[in-house]
């Protein structure tokens, strides 16, 4: 597994995914050094009140049938949410 293949899988599996029942929609992912930035459609930022709920929802995500967090950890990457 490489960073590029993980980002490609993330985009395929979670691009356009709705968060909090459609309040936010994922636009895509970008890598900057060891950070994976999650971008939302229309450049939206997460409301502070929604942050914990969105984090919990994302914590349940899988990529290539393994937990996303585990995949990121294996490549020493950190997910950054738009706040």
């Amino acid at each position, binding site marked *: 597994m490489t960073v590029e293949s993980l980002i490609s899988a993330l985009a395929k599996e979670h691009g356009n995914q709705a968060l909090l029942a459609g309040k936010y929609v994922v636009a895509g992912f970008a890598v900057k050094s060891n950070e994976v930035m999650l971008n939302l459609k229309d450049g939206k930022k997460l409301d502070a009140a929604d942050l914990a709920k969105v984090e919990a929802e994302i*914590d349940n995500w899988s990529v290539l*049938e393994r937990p*996303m967090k585990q995949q990121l950890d294996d490549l020493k990457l950190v997910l950054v949410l738009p706040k």
Partner: protein
Amino acid sequence: MSGQPSASARAADTPSTGVEADARSPQQRFLGLSRRRQFTLIEELLLTRSGELLRAYPCLLAVGHGFRRRRTHAGDGDGVGEIVTAERCVLFLVRRKWKRRGSQLRRLPAHLYCHDLVRGRRTLLAIPTDVSESRPLQANASPEAVDVADRVAHGVLTCLVDCALADGTRERRALSCRHVLSLTGIRSPEPNSVPVRHNGALIGDTLAIRGELSATDPAGFDAQAMRVSTPAAANRCVFTAIWPRGHVSHGGEFEASMWLQLPRDDGAIRVNYRGVWPVMRVSYGSGAARFVASVGPLVEVELVGNQKTLPGDSGSPLVIGYSKPRLAGMHIAGNPDDGNGRALSYCIPAYALMDPGNYAGADGEQWTLPQD
């Protein structure tokens, strides 16, 4: 769905006359409700009509709730099989799906009608149904993880639990399956208290706080508590290094996809939620001590990929989330093939697992999952 009663062949039950301003069909109106409202209506229907449905349709073994499944075809790239959709439904459990159209009388309804108040108007709704075929379930006790009483009959600890006892004191315990901690179906009579070890290190000892589980009980509960005397040894049993915190408090909180934390190198296995059954028949043990029990409630989940549950997986936690797992259930039994090549796991839902009322010997206690 394959065979009969298929959705296309099934008739709808007779709706009562409703006056609705909403031009959508009753099916569409139901799908337009919030997830929580859909679940509430399904639960209400199951509570009030399960008995009647079981009497009306002799082929029915049980009525539960979950998500509908749809057939996939070769063109979908996944071969012919089934996928779980996000559409909530009432589930019918039958011994065998019909291969050909049956008589009108034997057809299970494709929808069940109910009424709700939507924006102040009495509205007719149609709850979809789906049919599952009954398969033999085997409770999995065997290798690795938690050694019980020097016997090679093993399983997994599901979670820690902080118990406020009736006398005002508090005690930290762990939960697992009764068939793991009491060697049900393996040793007869079952021991009341045995030491529990992990790789030879003592974790604690089992308590006679457990659900009823026998061939004669109409709704057995395969869970048991143990006292944790060496927390460090207990913590070494956790495969993700984190015990579940918080739990699902009702059936509407299950996610379409969850994780089954199995005691293997590949650890968390992706599973898709299929439904909740009030009671299923589960086979315990082998040889002379073997018996079949009615156990429930049970959550049915489908393992993604080519995964299967194995002996020794019993007690594995079903969770939502990976780094901050919330307990959704406890694996007690598996089925390697649902007829479409998919393996299934059956778990006690967390809301039932965390209810001391389901255990003999826990009167007046209150249980919570630890936050530390």
